[in-house]
């Protein structure tokens, strides 16, 4: 069974994002970028499926500007077998929305016929939490979102989902889309020899037009501003003072 893993290049999670003064977006110039953490978890899970003999091949795919190739090389160094880069323009405002990403992924799924598409539950930049569900809809396949456990058995997969009320387990007919939550696994680091090896793994270069997908945005981002800043308050010196404060707030 083939596993398709879409990966996105995003601002590193340790970086504090800064809004541009002109309100046009977040300043990403000279900012450290990394693979979306949830996508690292997806790559790791795909590798584990391969190590268990469930998956036969792992194909990583990224839709984004030229630098998205770095993210694909990271996936290859972790253990993906080959990569597809769907290149989009560099300029600001040409970011591809989840719906268009899902359409491209659907076209790739039709071509590659994966048994599972494993992807992140949300990208930590735009925090949309949509792409996996949209792909599942367009592909006419089931979805196991926010997964903390994935078990393939025959022609179905059991997915344990982190939901508001606890942990829900569902059974999905394959092929299926699974989106990862934080506790699915702890991703490995790529070793130096594997980073070297990844350089010669195949990486196909494509464009959205190759898949007949129009990436024109449907949402217009008209303004991006800083949220109101919270001011630091006071420090109290003792538990008694804290108790008094809580009483004054009417909660104690």
């Amino acid at each position, binding site marked *: 069974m083939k596993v398709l893993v879409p990966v996105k290049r995003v601002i590193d999670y340790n970086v*504090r*994002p*800064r*809004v541009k003064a002109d309100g046009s*977006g*977040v300043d990403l110039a000279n900012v450290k970028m990394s693979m979306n953490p*949830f996508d690292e978890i997806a790559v790791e899970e795909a590798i584990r499926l391969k190590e268990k003999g469930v998956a036969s091949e792992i194909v990583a795919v990224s839709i984004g500007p030229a630098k998205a190739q770095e993210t694909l090389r990271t996936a290859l160094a972790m253990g993906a077998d080959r990569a597809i880069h769907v290149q989009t323009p560099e300029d600001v405002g040409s970011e591809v*929305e*989840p*719906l268009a990403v*899902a359409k491209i992924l659907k076209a790739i799924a039709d071509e590659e016929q994966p048994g599972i598409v494993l992807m992140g539950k949300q990208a*930590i*930049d735009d925090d*949309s939490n*949509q*792409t996996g*569900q*949209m792909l*599942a*809809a367009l592909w006419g396949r*089931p*979805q*196991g*979102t*926010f997964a*903390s456990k994935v078990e393939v058995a025959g022609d179905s997969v059991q997915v344990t*989902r*982190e*939901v*508001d*009320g*606890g*942990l*829900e*387990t569902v*059974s*999905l*007919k394959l092929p299926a889309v699974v989106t990862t*939550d*934080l506790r699915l696994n702890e991703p490995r680091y790529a070793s130096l020899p594997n980073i070297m090896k990844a350089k010669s793994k195949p990486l196909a270069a494509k464009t959205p037009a190759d898949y007949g997908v129009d990436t024109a945005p*449907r*949402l*217009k*981002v*008209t303004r*991006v*501003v800083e*949220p109101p800043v*919270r001011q*630091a*308050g*006071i*420090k109290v010196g*003792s538990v008694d003072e*804290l*108790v008094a*404060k*809580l009483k004054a707030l009417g*909660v*104690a």
Partner: protein
Amino acid sequence: MKTLVLVEHDNVHLKDATLATVTAAAKLGEVHLLVAGKGCRAVADAAAKIAGVGKVYLADDAAYEHQMAENVAPLVVGLMDSHDAFLAPATTTGKNVAPRVAALLDVMQVSDIVSVEGERTFTRPIYAGNAIATVESTDAKLVITVRGTTFDKAASEGGSASIEDVSGPGDSGLSSFVSLAAEESERPELTSAKVIVSGGRALKDAATFEQLIVPLADKLGAAVGASRAAVDAGYVPNDYQVGQTGKIVAPQVYIAIGISGAIQHLAGMKDSKVIVAINKDEDAPIFQVADIGLVGDLFQIVPELTSKL
């Protein structure tokens, strides 16, 4: 504009997240509700009483018992012929169903809105809440998820909407429910609690968390939350996690104990009215957002605090 709101429920009770979503929908136009479930007429009755609701659709079918997105999305799509906007609470159920609806309608969803600025214009937090984007949809229909903490709850009494039975395509045959492991608790729900006591990695282990955090929460009638580090380490279950990728909360008082204040954690609680932080490191980032801070060792402070309340 006619809006359709997905009701959040467990086949018995209507959940509060619905009420904030109704408020957001009412800013756009007429509000209709969809209750999809099994044996859930009581929920539809409760939904019909919500102030400002024009109509309640009830889809009562075994296929909708667990609100599997594969089954619910086509049902919603059918109803969208006669509606202009679909809104769901940004809960795990809403986040699971809404994008599936959006894709079937060929619409780009607007996720997690925090305000309605106009008929097609909304604001939403991005980058873990470090930026607020104003977005305008150019799609024919709107699909939206709503952040519950930023809209007032619609009154749960006062309405008298009619209930209309509807049916959809039923079971897709693609997915099935296996089980739900949920902890029964008398405690208030995290997302609607007035007071939250949250513990972090510093709590050491599950037993210590239970010994220190729980009695304090009991004294305050508070819900219990946690940082990702505390959940990852197994101190508490996953549904306690507050943050960018956990639950978004905005209680009147949020007490962070042994939590450093990483941006991912702040994203989930910085709209709390009053933030109290207890941390032994006076430079911990949590103090930059805390209204009331106490620097010191939680292992001394928390028992003393609990005993003095």
